[in-house]
């Protein structure tokens, strides 16, 4: 398992591995927001938590179709399926490496972008907390979407269509927690629910993803 994680991380950091693409996308989307809604700082500060959450979600989505498609094309998935490592574990590791290369940098970059969007000072801590809690769920759910569409030619668009509705609860609770934090309200309830979703998906989704992947590889 550690070997797989190391390999995936190594691949992500090598040239052409796509590390940083999600981050750059996040940056650009956030920078474009003031251009589209106007530069008024009150408006920006109201929508900042939501915009940052949506940007992070889209950035996660962007890198998902590389997650399994490349391994499918070069036969790695076939070989992994015959390896002693259970497919559930392999997919959990894949989701983890996706989070480490996409989700974690987003969490770390969010405060900087929060500054640019005039996020209320009380909101920073909760923004980071909600993203840190929520982005793992995005990676795990995304892995399921990637497994569903891995055998389909040009499956990227279809994957977005399948994954985005599944992201709704995570987005609602995550953005709600960040928003309440920014408004100085107590974000405890949405944050707890978000943690619940994250833990639940981490525990259960790999089984669904592995089941689906076995069906595709047949």
């Amino acid at each position, binding site marked *: 398992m*550690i*070997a*797989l994680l*190391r*390999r995936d991380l*190594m*691949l992500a950091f*090598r*040239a*052409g*591995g796509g590390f940083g693409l999600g981050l750059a996308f996040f940056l650009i989307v956030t920078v474009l927001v003031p251009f589209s809604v106007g530069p008024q700082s009150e408006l920006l500060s109201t929508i900042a938590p939501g915009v940052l959450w949506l940007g992070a979600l889209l950035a996660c989505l962007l890198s998902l179709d590389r997650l399994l498609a490349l*391994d499918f*094309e*070069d*036969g*790695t998935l*076939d*070989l*992994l*399926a*015959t*390896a*002693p*490592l259970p497919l559930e574990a392999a997919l959990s590791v894949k989701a983890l490496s996706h989070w480490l290369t996409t989700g974690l940098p987003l969490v770390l970059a969010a405060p900087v972008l929060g500054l640019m969007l005039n996020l209320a000072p009380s909101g920073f801590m909760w923004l980071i907390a909600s993203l840190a809690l929520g982005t793992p769920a995005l990676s795990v759910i995304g892995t399921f979407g990637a497994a569903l569409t891995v055998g389909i030619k040009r499956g990227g668009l279809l994957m977005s269509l399948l994954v985005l509705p599944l992201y709704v609860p995570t987005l609602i609770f995550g953005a709600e927690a960040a928003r309440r934090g920014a408004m100085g309200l107590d974000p405890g309830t949405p944050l707890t629910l978000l943690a619940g979703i994250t833990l639940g998906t981490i525990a259960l989704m790999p089984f669904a993803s592995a089941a689906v992947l076995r069906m595709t*590889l*047949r």
Partner: protein
Amino acid sequence: MTLSIQNLAVARGGVPVLGNVSFAIAPGQALILRGPNGAGKTTLLRTIAGLQKPLSGVIEGADETIAYAGHADGLKAMLSVAENLQFWAQVFGHSDIEAALAAYQLGPLIDRLAGTLSAGQKRRLGLARLMVTGRRVWVLDEPTVSLDADAVAMFAAAVTAHLGAGGMALIATHIDLGLNAQTFDITPYRATADTRSGASDEAFL
């Protein structure tokens, strides 16, 4: 432990292609599969490797013993030869890649990125992967594609050494490897009406 196949029927895309296939491979033995294109060699090998379910029949001795090599080698272009090999060794719980490197004369290429190798070199790396799995049964689908005569000799030597150590091999190939092995022609086993039961679309007929 013998690999034994009894009355196996396999399907491709829901349509039965082979039926009533039976054979056994004892330790130290190899079996060469032959048959025209589209006869179902790949489907049969994938079924034995556990990548798809048989329509019917029994496969014994295949649990966690098979190393499969298909048309794709599972190599990453951005990793070096050693890194690719080490990765597969670790996945299978081993760490020694020296023997595999030596058998396919990959030593001089060890730091090259796999993406910069020629097709034949990639294939050699893909076959070297089998040696680091430590698995006893090699299931190989057209392993000699894009190999030159020298490389085929390396491959034959590697298989012979594997058999000598009590391993087994099931190889679909058209060329003569010079191995001391039985051949098994799958042409007569094409699925017929009475072996078709179990096909997924049978209910619609």
